[in-house]
């Protein structure tokens, strides 16, 4: 199986505080991989590295065979990102927000409009295109951000705790939507500390104190132990 994302020997410090220690793992094409870890495990730092916002020393990040350090443009063009913090203009419409993002990716005119419509339809958001983001509830805002991250047809979707602050139905809906994307061949790296968002046949990378503590298919890694219990035992943190 080819790899959508390969991370090798990644380390990063925030000043004297080590955040990532020799992190290595891969996400195969078309797979949903959960980056599981308690708060402070280094998930957000890893996401910042994967999106090129911070450069690790040492370490290699390769997206679809493109080295993020050497050819950042080719690598970034293959990544769609949903950040933990909201990143939209509240006083502008859903369509305007998506159009801005499309333009940032170099898309304009009919092509951009078409892709925006397709992306919104994929997330069941097409009838909300004209609404101001401020008028949307939290779940719909998140869905808009996922639709936005898909506009430039990335092969890898990175989501940093995308369900934070959402109620249970919205959380379930978004988790289901993103799982469904893998059927189209999109690979997903989903950072979370909530074990109920994982399916037994998903992949899992357990990040604990900046290191990869476990990796593999959820059911294979956890065996007969329920995931929540397993997670607690491995990290000593309340899930």
């Amino acid at each position: 199986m080819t790899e959508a994302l390969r991370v090798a020997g990644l380390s990063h410090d925030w000043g004297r505080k080590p955040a990532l220690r020799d992190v290595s793992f891969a996400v195969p094409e078309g797979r949903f991989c959960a980056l599981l870890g308690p708060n402070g495990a280094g998930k957000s730092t890893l996401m910042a590295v994967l999106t090129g916002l911070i450069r690790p020393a040492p370490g290699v990040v390769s997206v679809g065979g493109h080295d993020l350090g050497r050819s950042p443009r080719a690598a970034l063009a293959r990544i769609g990102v949903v950040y933990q913090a909201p990143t939209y203009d509240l006083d502008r419409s859903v369509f305007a927000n998506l159009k801005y993002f499309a333009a940032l990716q170099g898309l304009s005119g009919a092509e951009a409009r078409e892709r925006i419509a397709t992306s919104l339809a994929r997330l069941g958001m097409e009838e909300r295109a004209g609404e101001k983001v401020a008028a949307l509830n939290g779940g719909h805002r998140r869905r808009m951000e996922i639709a936005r991250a898909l506009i430039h047809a990335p092969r890898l979707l990175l989501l940093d705790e995308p369900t934070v602050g959402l109620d249970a139905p919205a959380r379930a809906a978004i988790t289901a939507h993103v799982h469904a994307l893998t059927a189209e061949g999109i690979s997903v790296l989903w950072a979370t500390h909530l074990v109920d968002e994982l399916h037994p046949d998903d992949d899992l990378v357990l990040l604990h104190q900046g290191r990869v503590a476990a990796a593999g298919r959820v059911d294979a890694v956890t065996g007969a132990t329920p995931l929540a219990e397993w997670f607690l035992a491995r990290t000593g943190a309340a899930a």
Partner: protein
Amino acid sequence: MKALIAARAIITRELARFVTQRERFFAALVRPLVWLFVFAAGFRAALGLSIIPPYKTYISYETYIVPGLCGMILLFSGMQSSLSLVNDRESGTMRLMLTAPWPRWFLLGAKLLAGAMVGLLQVAVFLGIAWFYGLKFSAVGYLAALPALALAGIMLGALGLFLSARIRQLENFAGVMNFVIFPMFFLSTALYPLWKMQESSPLLATLCEINPFTHAVELVRFALYGQLNLAALGWTVLAFALFFGLALLGYEPARTRSR
């Protein structure tokens, strides 16, 4: 040319944001107009001006401070857009921009250009009002002032960009006012010619001379009379290169600090 689509989007977003924030637009205009109508009227008597280049006759104090007030608008505008950068950085919209597949200097340059255009828009309205007030320049002057103002705006924007990259505690405008805007504005030729300052304090005059804001103001002053002040142009370009270079270093991935 896909990169140009991205640049255009960054610029139109900035302009749209500015136009929708009416209070910001009026606040930006009221400030220099108060200086022009009130401060200049009061100071007219106190400050005698001799004939110095680019002026060929005695001029009113109001005429003298017009370029300085244009600079003031650009200075405030540059600092304000740097503050919005800090907000963008905190809120994450900056991340959205920086993860677009273009070189970082290009994306930050587009942001800079966007800020400068917002500043130019304000200056244009200010010069329009000044025209009705009787402070008129020739068509050539206005035309020549345009690139001078644009360069001044970009230079001051780059300073703001650099500050936003380096100083984390830039959240409140009061700090920027005290430590950046006021010293830059008062230690310049915006309100009084250099020789006046020289008379009172050679040290302060030297500080005025090395202040890049002085050169930006002089560039605009000469341009308004259709003249090119080469030294001012050189210093302004140099200051821009320095500030933009430092800003790029500040936004370099490895140096970007944790939220």
